[in-house]
C-alpha cells in the first residue's frame, strides 16, 4: 500500500473545511485515483474542531487508516488532535502569519505558507484554503491542473471571475512552496490514471437509488445525519415528476409518506434514531394497513440525543422490534456505498411486492463518507421494478366479494393481498390500523383476528422462500476464523484482511445486508472454529441475534467511541480476540 496518500484539512467549523476537502477529493477523482473520505465534526455550526480526511490510491480504498501524510492545519488543535496519526515524514501546511504560533514536532516537515495574504493577492481572503490546496499539490507532486477542473466544477455556476481567482489562489500556493522550500515532493509520486470515477457518499447513493426505483414522493424532517438525503432529492426529484415536503415533524413526515404510498406512489421518508422513535406509532399503521413504504434510518450515536454527529450502529433492535404489538417488517442494511444504491431499489421492490414497511438501515459513517467508483457500479439499465400484486380495471373483479366490495386484505396462501390504488373502478376500500376483516373493516372477531395476523406473518415466510437473502463474502472461504459484520464496517474489514494475511491469519468475512428476513448462518458458524461479530455498538445487538438464531456463543468486537472502525485497528482487535476464551 505504498501508493497510499493520506491528506487532511482541519480547523474550526465554519472555516470551509468540508468544501475544501470535497474539492481536493474531486481533483483526485478526476485524476483517476481512488478516494475514500472521512469527516470529524462537532454538533455546532461555527467553532469547534472539524476535519476532512482523504485517503487516496490508484487501488481501491475503502477504509480509513491511522496515518496522515499531509495536514493542512488552520488551528493548533488540528495538529494536536492528529498527533497520533502524524509520522516523521508528515508535512504540515500552516499559516505562520496568523496570530497562533504553530507547535509542530521537529521530525515533521513544517510548511509555512502565508495562506491569507496569498489569497488576498488572488482576490480575497476567503480563498486561503484553496492556496493550501495548491501548496499540497506542490508538496506531493500532484498536477494542479486536476485541481483546476475541480474548481471549475465547484465554482462554475458563480461565474468565470470566481473560477479564475480560485485557480490563481491555487497557483500562488503552489509557487510559494516551489520557491521557498526544497521538498522534492517528499518522495511522493501521485500517479494518475485515465479512469473516470464518480465520487459520492452513502446518502447521495440512497437518494439516487430512490429516484432510480421510481420514488416520487419524499417527506422528511431535518436531522443529522439523514438530512442530506432530503437535500439530494430536493431539486432533483422534480425532474422526474416527484416532490419533497419538509414536514413540520417526523410524525407528519411518515404520515405524508404513508398517504402518498396508499395512493399508489413509491414514497419514502428518512430520519435518524430519535426521529424513528417518533415515527414508531405510524410504523405499526403502515404494517397493518399493508402499505408499501420505505423508512430509512441513518443511525447515529444514541440513546436520546446522544452524540448527533458521531457514528454508531445502535438502532438494530429498534429496527427489528420497534413498535407496540407484533409487526412484520423487512430490515435491509446496505454494507457499502454502492449497496446504498442497490439496496434502496430492492427496498422499494420488497415494499410493494410484500406490501410492508421496509426499514433501510444505514449509518453515519456511510452517510458522510465519499468514495470513488466506476460509474458502471450504478448502471441504471440493471434497475428492475416489481410493483407486486397491483390490480387494475381488468382484474379487480377477481377480488370482489358477492356484494361487489373489494377485498383489499384478502386472506391468501402467500399472505399477499391484491392492491388497488385510488382511481381503480370498484377498488374503493378502507384501510385501518384497527384489526380488520378482508374488506379492511374493523373486527374483533377471533377467527378474523387470527387470519389477518397469520396472513401478515405469512408474507415473511413467502419472502424467505422467494428471495435470496444472501450475504457478501470476503477473505478465505475455508478459513477456520469467521468474522461477521453488518453496515459500514465492511470496507474496513476487507482491508483488515490484508493486514491479517501478512500475519498469517486466515479469516472468512461475512457481511450481512439483510437483517430481517436474514440469511441462516448456522452452517457457516458450525464450520468455523471461531466466530467474531463486529459492530459499532456497546452491547452487540447483531451478535445477540446471531446467538439467538444459531444457539451458539460468539465473540464480539464492539466500538462505541463514536468513530468508525479503522482497517489496522480491526486487524489488531481480531488478532487479540482470536486468542481469547470463548464466552461460556
Amino acid at each position, binding site marked *: 500500500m505504498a501508493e497510499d496518500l493520506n491528506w487532511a484539512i482541519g480547523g474550526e467549523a465554519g472555516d470551509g473545511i468540508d468544501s475544501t476537502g470535497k474539492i481536493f477529493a474531486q481533483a483526485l477523482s478526476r485524476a483517476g485515483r481512488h478516494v475514500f473520505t472521512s469527516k470529524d465534526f462537532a454538533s455546532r455550526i461555527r467553532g469547534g474542531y472539524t476535519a476532512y480526511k482523504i485517503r487516496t490510491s490508484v487501488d481501491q480504498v475503502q477504509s480509513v487508516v491511522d496515518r496522515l501524510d499531509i495536514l493542512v492545519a488552520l488551528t493548533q488543535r488540528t495538529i494536536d488532535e492528529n498527533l497520533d496519526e502524524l509520522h516523521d515524514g508528515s508535512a504540515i501546511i500552516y499559516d505562520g502569519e496568523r496570530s497562533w504560533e504553530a507547535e509542530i514536532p521537529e521530525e515533521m516537515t513544517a510548511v509555512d505558507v502565508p495562506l491569507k495574504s496569498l489569497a488576498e493577492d488572488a482576490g480575497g481572503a476567503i480563498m486561503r484554503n484553496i492556496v493550501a490546496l495548491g501548496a499540497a499539490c506542490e508538496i506531493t507532486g500532484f498536477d494542479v491542473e486536476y485541481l483546476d477542473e475541480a474548481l471549475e466544477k465547484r465554482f462554475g455556476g458563480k461565474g468565470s471571475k470566481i473560477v479564475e481567482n480560485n485557480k490563481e489562489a491555487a497557483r500562488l500556493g503552489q509557487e510559494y512552496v516551489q520557491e521557498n522550500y526544497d521538498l522534492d515532493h517528499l518522495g511522493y509520486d501521485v500517479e494518475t490514471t485515465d479512469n473516470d470515477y464518480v465520487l459520492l457518499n452513502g446518502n447521495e447513493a440512497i437518494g439516487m437509488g430512490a429516484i432510480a426505483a421510481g420514488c416520487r414522493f419524499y*417527506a422528511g424532517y431535518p436531522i443529522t445525519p439523514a438530512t442530506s438525503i432530503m437535500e439530494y432529492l430536493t431539486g432533483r426529484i422534480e425532474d422526474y415528476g416527484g416532490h419533497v415536503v419538509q414536514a413540520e415533524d417526523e410524525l407528519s413526515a411518515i404520515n405524508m409518506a404513508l398517504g402518498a404510498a396508499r*395512493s399508489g406512489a413509491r414514497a419514502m421518508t428518512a430520519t435518524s434514531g430519535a426521529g424513528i422513535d417518533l415515527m414508531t406509532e405510524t410504523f405499526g399503521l403502515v404494517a397493518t394497513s399493508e402499505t408499501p413504504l420505505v423508512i430509512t434510518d441513518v443511525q447515529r450515536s444514541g440513546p436520546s440525543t446522544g452524540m448527533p454527529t458521531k457514528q454508531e450502529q445502535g438502532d438494530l433492535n429498534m429496527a427489528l422490534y420497534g413498535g407496540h404489538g407484533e409487526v412484520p417488517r423487512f430490515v435491509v442494511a446496505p454494507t457499502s456505498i454502492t449497496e446504498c444504491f442497490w439496496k434502496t431499489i430492492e427496498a422499494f421492490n420488497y415494499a410493494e411486492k410484500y406490501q410492508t414497511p421496509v426499514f433501510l438501515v444505514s449509518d453515519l459513517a456511510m452517510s458522510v463518507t465519499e468514495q470513488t467508483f466506476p460509474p458502471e457500479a450504478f448502471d441504471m439499465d440493471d434497475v428492475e421494478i416489481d410493483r407486486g400484486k397491483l390490480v387494475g380495471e381488468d382484474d379487480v373483479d377477481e377480488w370482489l366479494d358477492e356484494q361487489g366490495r373489494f377485498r383489499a386484505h384478502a386472506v391468501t396462501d402467500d399472505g399477499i393481498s391484491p392492491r388497488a390504488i385510488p382511481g381503480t373502478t370498484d377498488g*374503493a376500500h378502507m384501510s385501518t390500523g384497527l384489526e380488520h376483516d378482508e374488506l379492511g373493516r374493523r373486527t374483533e372477531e377471533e377467527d378474523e383476528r387470527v387470519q389477518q395476523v397469520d396472513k401478515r406473518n405469512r408474507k415473511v415466510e413467502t419472502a424467505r422462500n422467494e428471495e435470496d437473502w444472501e450475504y457478501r463474502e470476503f477473505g478465505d472461504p475455508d478459513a477456520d476464523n469467521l468474522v461477521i459484520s453488518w453496515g459500514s464496517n465492511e470496507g474496513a474489514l476487507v482491508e483488515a484482511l490484508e493486514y491479517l494475511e501478512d500475519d498469517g491469519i486466515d479469516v472468512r468475512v461475512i457481511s450481512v445486508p439483510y437483517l430481517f428476513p436474514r440469511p441462516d448462518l448456522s452452517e457457516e458458524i458450525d464450520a468455523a472454529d471461531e466466530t467474531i461479530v463486529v459492530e459499532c455498538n456497546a452491547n452487540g445487538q447483531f451478535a445477540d441475534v446471531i446467538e439467538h438464531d444459531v444457539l451458539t456463543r460468539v465473540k464480539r468486537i464492539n466500538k462505541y467511541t463514536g468513530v468508525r472502525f479503522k482497517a489496522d485497528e480491526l486487524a489488531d482487535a481480531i488478532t487479540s480476540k482470536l486468542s481469547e476464551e470463548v464466552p461460556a
Partner: protein
Amino acid sequence: MSSDVRFTDFKSDKQPTWCPGCGDFGTMNGMMKALANTGNDPDNTFVVAGIGCSGKIGTYMHSYALHGVHGRALPVGTGVKMARPDLEVMVAGGDGDGYSIGAGHFVHAVRRNVDMSYVVMDNRIYGLTKGQASPTSRSDFETSTTPEGPKQPPVNPLALALASGASFIAQSFASDALRHEEIVQEAIEHDGFGFVNVFSPCVTFNDVDTYDYFRDSLVDLQEEDHDPNDYEAAKKVILDSEKEYQGVMYQDENSVPYHEQHGVTEDMSDIPDGAPDGAMDLVREFY
C-alpha cells in the same frame, strides 16, 4: 367521474355505532351529499380520518379511505393530494384529534394551503374515552378529568386557522342539514385548504353544548350581510367571543393550492418499468 352519482353511493353497508342522536350522523350525511353534489364518486375520492368518534367515518362511508393514528390525518391527506392531484381528498377529524394532538399539523396544513377539505366534528368533549375535557371545552366545563373545569380558555380553531394564513374558514352545525351541506360543498370547491368546524353535539357526555344551545344561539352569517372576502370583517366575526356563528367566515379568492405552487400536476403512481429515462445523468453528476 360520473354524473349519476348519488350521495348514497358514498354510504357503506356498515351501521354506525355512534350513539343515537349523535351530531356525527348529520355531519357525515352533509359530507356525502357535498361530495356527490360536486361531481365526485367513491373511486376518485380519498377520505382520511384519525382516531375517536370522528375517526369511524371511513367505515361508514364508501370511498378510498384510510383510518389512521390519532391526530395525524392531515399529513396523510397531504401525502395523498401531492401524489395524486387528480383525487378529491377529504379529511375528517374531531376537536381532540385536530386541535390537541394534531394542532401542529393543523397549523402547517393550513399554511401550506393543501387542496383538500377538512371537516372537524367539534363536540367540545372527548366522547370515545367517555367524557374528558377537550381543547374546545369551556373553561368551567366539569368533566371526569376536570372536576372544576379546565380553568383555561378553549382553543378558537377559527382564529388559529386565520392566524396560520387560512384561505377558507367556515363553521356549520350538524343539525342544520342544508346549510351544513352547502358549507362543506363550498369547502370542497375552494382551491386550497377548505376548513369547516362543525358543531356536532355529543348527546351522551356534553349537556352544555347541546342541539338546543346551538339552535338558540347560532347566528347565520348569510343573514348578516357578511362578506367572506373581507379579511377585517372575517377577523371581527372570528374573534367575537360573545356569539356563535355559522357560515363561511373567510375565503381568499386568489388562493393557489400547495401542489400548484410547487408545480405538482402529475399522477405519481405511474412509474416506468425500470429506471427513468436519463437516469444515468444522476450518476454522471458525480464525475
